[in-house]
């Protein structure tokens, strides 16, 4: 060995594999304004589409007259539901088993609903034309409050469902009822309540909000009539699913549809579903034979495509006097708006809300969810959370605090007392999940020690006394949140979208010179897959990440996958990547054995190649093996070095974390200042700690926004009140708190690299931490539960109602 021979550490570092803070590949183009987003696309002859929208929340549409609009120079066409009926596309199926109008078919069900699609030479003319389309409406009574949806005299929102007593998820019990979903043992749970020393009950609302990525939903559809091929570029978190849906709806064969998701400017669940804009653009391109671009504006985005949450959760806990929980009962009233356009796996009408037992060992639990229609935008999607998991985490974490208050116990101690213990994993929850792994106690104690929890409680007590003595007008809250997520949908035995099992995939091709191209069924929207996927491959096959190109989003070239949402990319595609890489390594081992003239069993893997056992000098690097795979493969072996893997996960993964929020609140102004926010995450094996930290920062900022003011509110006649960045709270750098991050590592036992997914944890765990901090601050004044969002006005109102203003 001479001095130039790299050490093992140097060879390891050169790979930039798993566990390293590799700088992002994507940033080179993004920092120079050279990203490639949908609206950057310009095709010859391209036209622009834009919608005429309803000003009313509930009305009959009695007449649409486009004649004046069509007279405007530059206007090519105006599509209405009547036109779409010709191609059987006036309505489309939703992912939740409902149907949804593409364009208003006789009536509108929410404000800003799509009524007609104008196609013009440019976006300015399209906008002019919208003003010229005359629509006559006949107003109908508006239903906004989901608690009134099932009143006997509630207006009928969906005459198309008249007489349908059976929905996609069982019987419907009212004309505005969508489904009832029941999980758990009702009798056993009732028994637990009958025998309980203590019970609590609270209606905990998680208000309607919106994912609101900075780039809105958009597409360009281009029909090549000569070859019968359709190409759609779009903001698609799940491009392959969009292709399948487009094929089923249009009857164009799937191989003649090319769906391309280029760079995406954030998704957060907004870009999973299929929206009228996509359908209308495709139809308009089929009609006109030229490309059609559709770009949502911000108001359209906030008021029409995919709201999130709007869950009204009545939680009850039964417990013993010592704080041991014995039963959990939850009823949810789920407001879906005008159509059930949830983007959940097909069999899960309320997503994975049955993770609501959280991190606690409830021996008995029962859950019932009722979905209802209202005159609001359809949805709802999972805004940076695995399906309805953030709602569940908020529900149980708020309820545990309320129980602690009733028992006069410390909320952290109550949680620790009831945690699922390390030796109980794999743990079977009362609502049907098998938690794969966890070490809650270690995480909680590390978090409490780091933040100085006991000292903070002592300080809070002193402040409360000073407040009572009139020495300060500031109160202090400590928000505790210990969440368990369920991500990585999912096993084919219980997860599908429109019948397609929720596997994911990876294809890896090693070229003769030892460089790699790899493609997956997922689609990054900022998660940095081009960087992290290469890190997994680098570690698995010993080729530097810098020599590995990752490509996603083109359905022509990438293997079929279900896309990126619900923190499923790492648990599902990440596993497919590792397994595809291992296929390559196994073949490489046979080639190396042939090259070194030994048995493959006499070889050890060593960072970036194979070496002969006991003779490390006799080795072949992956680069040499790659060349041999194409140049002189062993006799009888197929040449080449490629692999594909489709991964059907055996179980979900269950990331968890301990979050603490320390807040100071001025009772006279309602202004709440976050003094400290500490987030400890356990997402199993960590692929790129820099990216994990970035994900946690971003998710916490979204959690902060949601808990502290971000809301899509409606007035009593269905006007949407939060449909611009003037009214919809997106925190700036000034309001956003400073984030402290930390971690423990409990690898998933069933995942090939032990990774669990992290992108959504901070949203799931962050919201209860903020809300619990506000609630904790007011508890000593006699408050039990204050509903979110906690903006300054509402906090001020709460203080006033509690008599804190004297």
């Amino acid at each position, binding site marked *: 060995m001479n001095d130039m021979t790299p050490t093992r550490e140097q060879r390891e570092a050169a790979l930039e594999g798993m566990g390293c803070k590799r700088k992002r590949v994507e940033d080179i183009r993004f*920092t120079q304004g050279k*990203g490639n987003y949908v609206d950057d696309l*310009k095709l010859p002859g391209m036209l622009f589409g834009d919608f005429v929208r309803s000003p009313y929340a509930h009305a009959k549409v009695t007449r649409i007259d486009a004649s004046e609009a069509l007279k405007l120079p530059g206007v090519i066409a105006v599509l209405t539901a009547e036109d779409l009926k010709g191609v059987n596309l006036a309505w489309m199926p939703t992912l939740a088993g409902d149907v949804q109008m593409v364009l208003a078919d006789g009536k509108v069900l929410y404000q800003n609903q799509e009524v007609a699609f104008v196609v013009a030479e440019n976006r300015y003319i399209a906008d002019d034309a919208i003003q010229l389309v005359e629509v006559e409406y006949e107003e109908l009574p508006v239903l906004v409050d989901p608690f009134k949806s099932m009143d006997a005299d509630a207006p009928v929102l969906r005459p198309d469902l008249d007489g349908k007593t059976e929905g996609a998820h069982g019987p419907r019990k009212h004309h505005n009822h969508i489904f009832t979903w029941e999980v758990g043992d009702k009798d056993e749970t009732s028994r637990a309540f009958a025998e309980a020393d203590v019970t609590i009950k609270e209606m905990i609302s998680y208000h309607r909000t919106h994912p609101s*990525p*900075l*780039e809105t939903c958009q597409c360009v559809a281009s029909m090549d009539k000569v070859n019968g091929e359709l190409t759609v570029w779009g903001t698609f978190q799940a491009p392959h699913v969009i292709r399948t849906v487009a094929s089923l709806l249009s009857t164009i064969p799937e191989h003649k549809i090319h769906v391309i998701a280029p760079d995406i*400017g954030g998704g957060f669940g907004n870009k999973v579903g299929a929206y009228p804009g996509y359908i209308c653009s495709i139809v308009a391109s089929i009609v006109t034979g030229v490309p059609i671009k559709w770009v949502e504006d911000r108001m359209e985005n906030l008021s029409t495509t995919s709201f999130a949450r709007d869950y009204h959760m009545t939680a009850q806990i039964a417990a013993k006097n010592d704080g041991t929980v014995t039963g959990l009962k939850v009823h949810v009233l789920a407001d879906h708006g005008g159509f059930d356009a949830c983007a959940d796996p097909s069999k899960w009408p309320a997503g994975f809300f049955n993770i609501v037992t959280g991190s606690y060992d409830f021996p008995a639990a029962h859950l019932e969810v009722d979905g209802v229609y209202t005159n609001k935008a359809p949805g709802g999607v999972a805004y940076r959370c695995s399906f309805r998991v953030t709602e569940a985490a908020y529900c149980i974490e708020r309820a545990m605090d309320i129980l602690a208050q009733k028992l006069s116990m410390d909320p952290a101690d109550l949680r620790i007392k009831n945690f699922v213990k390390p030796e109980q994993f794999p743990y079977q929850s009362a609502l049907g999940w098998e938690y794969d792994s966890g070490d809650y106690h270690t995480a909680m104690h590390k978090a409490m020690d780091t933040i100085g929890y006991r000292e903070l409680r002592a300080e809070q007590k002193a402040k409360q006394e000073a407040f009572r003595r009139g020495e300060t007008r500031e109160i202090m809250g400590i928000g505790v949140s210990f969440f368990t997520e369920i991500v990585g949908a999912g096993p084919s035995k219980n997860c599908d979208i429109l019948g397609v099992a929720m596997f994911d995939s990876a294809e890896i091709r090693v070229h003769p010179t030892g460089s790699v191209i790899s493609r997956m069924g997922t689609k990054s929207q900022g998660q940095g897959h081009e960087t992290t996927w290469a890190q997994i491959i680098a570690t698995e096959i010993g080729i530097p990440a810098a020599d590995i190109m990752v490509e996603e989003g083109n359905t022509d070239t990438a293997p079929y996958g279900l896309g990126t949402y619900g923190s499923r990319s790492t648990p599902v595609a990440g596993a497919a990547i590792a397994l595809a890489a291992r296929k390559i390594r196994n073949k490489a081992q046979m080639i190396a054995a042939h090259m070194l003239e030994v048995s493959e069993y006499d070889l050890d893997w060593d960072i970036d190649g194979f070496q002969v056992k006991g003779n490390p000098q006799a080795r072949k690097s992956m680069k040499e093996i790659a060349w041999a795979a194409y140049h002189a493969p062993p006799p009888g072996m197929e040449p080449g070095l490629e692999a594909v893997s489709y991964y059907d996960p055996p179980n979900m993964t269950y990331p968890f974390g301990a979050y603490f929020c320390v807040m100071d609140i001025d009772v006279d102004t309602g202004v709440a200042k976050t003094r400290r926010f500490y987030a400890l995450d356990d997402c199993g094996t960590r692929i790129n700690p820099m990216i994990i930290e970035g994900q946690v920062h971003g998710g916490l900022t979204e959690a902060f926004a949601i808990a502290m003011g971000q809301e899509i509110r409606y007035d009593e006649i269905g006007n949407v009140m939060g449909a611009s960045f003037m009214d919809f709270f997106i925190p*700036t*750098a000034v309001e956003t708190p400073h984030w402290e991050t930390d971690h423990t590592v409990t690898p998933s036992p069933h995942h090939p690299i032990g990774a669990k997914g992290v992108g959504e944890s901070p949203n799931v765990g962050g919201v209860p931490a903020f809300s619990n901090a506000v609630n904790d601050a007011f508890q000593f004044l006699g408050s039990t539960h204050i509903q979110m969002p906690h903006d300054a006005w509402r906090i001020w109102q709460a203080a006033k109602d509690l008599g804190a203003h004297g």
Partner: protein
Amino acid sequence: MSDIEQIPVTMTVNGKKVQRFVEPRTLLIHFLREDLNLTGPHIGCETSHCGACTVEMNGMSVKSCTLFAVQANDAELTTIEGMANADGTLSALQEGFRQMHGLQCGFCTPGMITRAHTLLQENPNPTEDEIRMGISGNLCRCTGYQNIVKAIQYAAAKLNGTDFQEAAE
């Protein structure tokens, strides 16, 4: 085509003089993106809130989604496409954003870097609070800003020839 009168505009964009005819109502962001093919600046809200469309005009940060192209007549403009060093390498800010992981989806990044560029002209050595206030017209949905602040501190230190001390967690 629309029969609205087209009027001439002249401006210097990233050091190059450009001359075009535009409808008076053409927004500067559409002029940049669609007439000049400078697709770095983005449209996120159309109402001046998000700052994805931020460009520098005559030394000031402006939101090009709420300015008409004709208002930029005779102006000197710099967009993200004009931010790299003359030799094509990444500028201190571009490098800082990559080194400090100050971006994720990249949609706000062109506006954010362009704004930060002007901020460092106005205040070459800003405190964290001054940076936070200085970029408060630019929204980011992905990063939570903490690493953007570090990226700007990194660039300021590099431009000032001082050591960058990453704040402790």
